[in-house]
């Protein structure tokens, strides 16, 4: 599974390059035979846990700590931790979508012919993070797989199972890059086998994210 996941990330990265969706990227690599992360990762994200989003974003971008720097400035990070033993069980993941915050946007004249439609719409960017932790969880409080929206500390929307890379990419493309998705991709490209559910029955009674 670890190799499959890494390949999924790489294949999607290549597609992004090919269709001009990303400005810059870092290859996904496997470390210590158990961690999938982007090449050149530094511990910066943990160091910045308590910083303002603006600073987090700037530092992350300037230090090139991401898998993908999208054409609109959003950063995408994928981290997976597998067990060391031969079974290679997925222990944790952290999948982030960090859009470019307002405040660094164009006050200047954009270069001619570069103007995107989004320059005229007032989009409020919100960071998202899909977290999975197979080992530390608490029924209803802290679901094994959950989604963080924005920087709200206790926002943990239950998710049915860990999310594989391709599913995450599918979600991001459709939600935030619909035009590019339509032009270059079809849903079939993203469909894979389901991962075993980890959501508890009581969590499933709440409003949650499910893949059928």
């Amino acid at each position, binding site marked *: 599974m670890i190799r499959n996941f890494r390949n999924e990330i790489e294949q999607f990265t290549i597609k992004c390059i*090919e269709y001009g969706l990303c400005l810059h990227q870092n290859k996904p690599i496997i470390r210590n035979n158990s961690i999938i992360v982007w090449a050149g990762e530094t511990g910066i994200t943990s160091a910045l846990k308590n910083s303002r989003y603006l600073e987090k974003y700037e530092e992350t971008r300037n230090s090139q700590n991401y898998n993908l720097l999208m054409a609109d400035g959003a950063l995408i990070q994928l981290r997976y931790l597998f067990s060391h033993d031969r079974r290679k069980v997925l222990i944790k993941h952290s999948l982030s979508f960090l859009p470019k915050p307002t405040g660094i946007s164009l006050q200047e004249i954009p270069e001619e012919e570069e103007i995107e439609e989004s320059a005229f719409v007032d989009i409020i960017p919100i960071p998202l993070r899909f977290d999975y932790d197979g080992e530390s969880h608490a029924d209803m409080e802290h679901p094994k797989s959950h989604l963080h929206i924005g920087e709200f500390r206790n926002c943990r929307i239950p998710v049915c199972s860990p999310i594989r890379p391709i599913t995450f990419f599918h979600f991001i493309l459709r939600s935030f890059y619909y035009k590019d998705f339509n032009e270059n991709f079809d849903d079939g490209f993203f469909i894979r086998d389901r991962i075993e559910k980890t959501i508890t029955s009581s969590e499933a009674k709440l409003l949650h994210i499910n893949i059928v």
Partner: protein
Amino acid sequence: MIEIISGSFKKPVVANDLKQYFKNKENLEGRLWFGYPVIGGIEGATTIDALFVSPAYGIFLFDLIEGNKIDDRSEIQDQLINHITARLLKKKELARRGKLKVEVNAITYAPACRTKVQEFEQENPYYSYAATREELDIFLEKNSKDCKGLYPLILSVIDAITSLGKGHKRREIKKKDSKGDKLRELEKSINHLDFQQEKAVIETSDSVQRIRGLAGSGKTIVLALKVAYLHSSNPNWDIAVTFKSRSLKQQFKDLITKFTIEQKGEEPDFNKISILNAWGGVSNPGIYYQFCTENGVQFYDFNSAKRLFYKDIPIPFDGICQKALDETSEMSELNTIYDVILIDEAQDFPDSFMKLCFSFLKVPKRLVYAYDELQKLNEESMSTPKDLFDFDLRNPEDGTRQDIILKKCYRNSRPILVTAHAMGFGVYREEGLVQFFDNPILWEEIGYDVVEGRLKPGYRVKLERPDKYSPKFLESHSDLDDIIQFRAFGDKQEQAQWIADQIKCNLSEDELQFGDIMVIHPNPRTTKSQVGIVRKILFENGISSHIAGHDTPADIFYYNRSIAFTQIHRAKGNEAPMVYIMDTQFCNNRDLSFGKRNILFTAISRSKAWIRVCGYGDAMKQLVKEFDRIKKNDFTLDFTYPTKEQMERINVIHREKTKDEKKKIKQVKQSFTDIMESIQSGEIQREDIKPFYMELNKMLGIKEYD
């Protein structure tokens, strides 16, 4: 002939005396500065009264005394010598065992203090004084030292641009004569300003000054040096420098810092120097923004400006600058902040912005603007100073030049530059010229010599770039066929594969670094998707690449260990030794407006050493043929100067079309197509529309067939 440059100096009478003294020495070669360089001191910075350097005589400092009062000048002379010596000693090639190979001499010249001079000379023979020109002669002869070999190096120290050479990446060269090796040699070449550049840096008028030159003639460096010099010699002045390309902001900051440190020995005070974008906004100061906030005028950001003007004015910025000017024209006293404003890339700004800067200046209004001679090909397109400020530039024989032309191009070698011009104008284009200078003098002003024929309408003319404007060392490193290549491929895949393979080779056998390479795409609308094909192949071969960002102020053009791909507008202001242009066929479409040829010109002129112009399809094949003609003509421009009628037609056919005009043309074309289809299908007979097409024939000047 001695090259004389006059900076700010406060002793006009004796300075002119000295100037005349040197001017009379017709056979002497060297440079003479007044009011330059600036030296730092405990009591603040001062400028040197006069400095003379000559390959035959050496280095001479002049301490000038105006009027008939004079004290002992030994301490001052010591100070001057020490400062200049210290600076020169930094260059190891100028020193031997801790001492300068060419020593610095100092003399006090006080023509109105004859007796006192004699006294001082007797009291202390170690310090020299002169009151007559004969005494100067004796002094020069006594202390002369031949320094021909070291002359360029000495100049570079005085120009305070030795720091320019530093900061070059260390190169690991294993193969002799690899491209990396050649680059290393190129980078070593000694930088010092040429005479025109020095004049542009040091001479500042109390009014408008215009500096023009080709891309690559060093305008940005000249402006940065000028800021450093003005700031060092006038620390109380509020100085602003502004520009269009975002990449220039950091460049200016770095250059000004470096140059000020080199001149004054300390960092610049950025409270007195503002490096500003033109527009600006709340989070990002700019001249227009400051003007509005200082004078209580409404500020418009890009979105609101576009909303306000989208129909009427093609450039929203023009509209809002004009609006700001109109609103303040009533005001009797404007808040003016700056003592001098320097504008780079002035050709990219509307007149209204130039006027806005002018009104933002304190009296005397010192405005310095630099522009690329060739971004606006018609001289008329860039408004004259007369139009802008009701001001005629003057170049008095003995005074500060207000109109300076930098003819020497330091970035592009002769073959690359001539190719860029030839393609930009369409000199060897099958269907003829695309655009042309209104004024033939401009050819000479951008550094071409007429070697055959005449620059007169209807006449044949052959233009060439001489060595003095296109230094040979820029092209002597490689064969001509290696320096420029035009290639037409079968399709985009073939093009992508070739470029990727070449880049692979550049990074390995050629020993080039990631930052040495730039790939340019001419069509901003399609850049992201089109470069993807090449980037994909590179990624699959383990080579990272990126599309140069354009959305944050912290604009990084080069990423570490990544190949830079860029659209043409973002490429402006940047340069690289190895440049690839892809999809160049875009610049040769049937629907030829000169904008596309300008794009081609800009792209080709990004290269410091080698260029590969690539594309596919028939349109590209035509461009290759065009380039072959340039080659066949040995990189000279040999053509028939267009007649007035021809020139009018070129302008009409190829002028930039506004959105409305484009729409109208589309509509009319559609109408014609409809008519033709109706005739073909038999719906209309020729007879039905005969009077119309006869009239049309007459209007278009087409021969009748009936």
